[in-house]
């Protein structure tokens, strides 16, 4: 059966996804509570996998807790912490547990995380993982060609990097991902609209948007510190000085952060080739309902079985 996210996109509705960061702890209620906040406002929510190479509850478990709350997960899985055996078995397990969307990532390097001495596995990379997942889905086979008793059923996602230079090298990565079997992309966070529009026109020219859905990443900025951190330390995020200046001036930083986010969404909605937004408000999940409502994206589409 198709995932809710896939149905929303295929019926050409403007999709809304959000991000749910699992806790640093064994507390299921933390996930359940965030899921309850997000559920009415999004079509699916990404569950991050030890994001930024920092240890949290595993994304598979958190995805299942979300399903129990009635929120559809986009299960994120990276090549950093698993070799090809673990990747394949986790994907099979995920499908068996009812997960229908996956976001396949290479993963941040361990040295930027909270266990910098950890060995990064990187036995496969995201390109190879996409090929492999598609092979399991379409051919019912493992990497080594052994037959599966049942194929996993996934809507396959990958990351896109609109702000990384050189543009041509990263565009080539995107084309390779499409060729490998990606159904949808979620982009890095957009603040720099000018650069983003330039990127989308390049994507459009290469007809990538005809072969895969593109969901633009957005995120409300909570504080000036966060803005500066994102500008300087988060790989692939570009925060224009104008945004920093606006936050400097604002008396209510949170309010201004949401306002900036809504302006970005407004612009992104108008761009041809963009099929939805992905709201990355990790640690600030409560902001998502307000953003979705104010952006005129509520209520979300509902499908009869």
């Amino acid at each position, binding site marked *: 059966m198709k995932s809710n996210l896939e149905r929303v996109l295929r019926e050409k509705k403007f999709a809304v996804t959000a991000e749910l960061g699992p806790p640093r702890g064994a507390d299921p209620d933390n996930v359940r509570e965030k899921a309850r906040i997000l559920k009415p406002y999004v079509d699916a929510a990404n569950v991050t996998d030890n994001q930024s190479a920092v240890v949290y509850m595993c994304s598979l478990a958190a995805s299942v807790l979300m399903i129990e709350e009635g929120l559809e997960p986009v299960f994120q899985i990276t090549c950093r912490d698993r070799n090809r055996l673990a990747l394949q078995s986790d994907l099979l397990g995920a499908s068996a547990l009812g997960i229908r969307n996956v976001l396949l990532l290479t993963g941040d390097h361990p040295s930027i995380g909270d266990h910098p001495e950890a060995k990064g596995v990187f036995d496969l990379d995201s390109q190879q993982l996409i090929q492999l997942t598609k092979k399991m889905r379409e051919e019912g086979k493992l990497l080594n060609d052994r037959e599966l008793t049942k194929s996993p059923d996934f809507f396959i996602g990958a990351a896109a990097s609109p702000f990384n230079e050189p543009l041509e*090298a990263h565009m080539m990565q995107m084309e390779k991902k499409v060729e490998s079997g990606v159904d949808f992309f979620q982009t890095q966070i957009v603040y720099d609209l000018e650069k983003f529009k330039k990127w989308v026109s390049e994507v459009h020219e290469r007809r990538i948007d005809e072969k895969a859905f593109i969901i633009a990443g957005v995120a409300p900025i909570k504080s000036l510190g966060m803005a500066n951190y994102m500008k300087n330390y988060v790989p692939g995020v570009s925060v224009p000085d104008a945004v920093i200046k606006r936050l400097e001036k604002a008396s209510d930083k949170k309010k201004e952060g949401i306002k900036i986010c809504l302006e970005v969404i407004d612009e992104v909605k108008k761009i041809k080739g963009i099929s939805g937004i992905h709201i990355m408000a990790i640690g600030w999940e409560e902001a998502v309902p307000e953003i979705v409502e104010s952006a005129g994206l509520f209520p979300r589409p509902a499908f009869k079985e």
Partner: protein
Amino acid sequence: MIVAEIKPLEEIKEMVKDKKGVLLVGCNTCTAVCFSSGKRELELLQTQLDLSLENPKPAFWQVIVRRACEPEMVTEISDYTREVEAILCLSCGIGVQTLSDIFPKKQVFPALNTSFLGRPEKLGFWQEVCVACGDCILHLTGGICPLSRCAKGLLNGPCGGSHEGKCEVSPDIPCAWEEIFTRLKEKNQLNMIRKTKEPRKVIRKPRYLLREDIFEDEK
């Protein structure tokens, strides 16, 4: 070449402090070229140990072998080892193991940390450029090795952490994939990396190399 650096003095002192006689063995090949195991380094290390160890301290001797990794060359220094209790080996880890095998009754200590397979970029600056993976793809990547020079060892292009030529791991580290991209573009060979390369097929287990054409089994 194999690049190595001398361990911190305190660590070396801990190894040798209770020994009566210690032979410092240098190696005159790779690690000598990177200023870690030649005559000068042996002299310096012995002086430092002499000055900093408390009495009773070991007596020191020195000898340099041409290649500490080769059993035949290591056997040549047997005479030097007779009187000593321990050997302090200034060579890569291969040399330390060869000495340990040839002189099983001696304690053999590593005085160096073996860093990587690399090359000198400037005086006093070396870079890792090969991981001895056993399946060279340099002809496909513009002569730049992504396994050693990309932090993640990726085979299929830059990750999302690559930006303006730098790696997400550190602004001091160039993105190998951007270097590969730029070089192939200059050569009009981007086709080399347009197709996704399959997962690597090298099996990671202790490796041996047997060349039938020159191998002589002593029976």
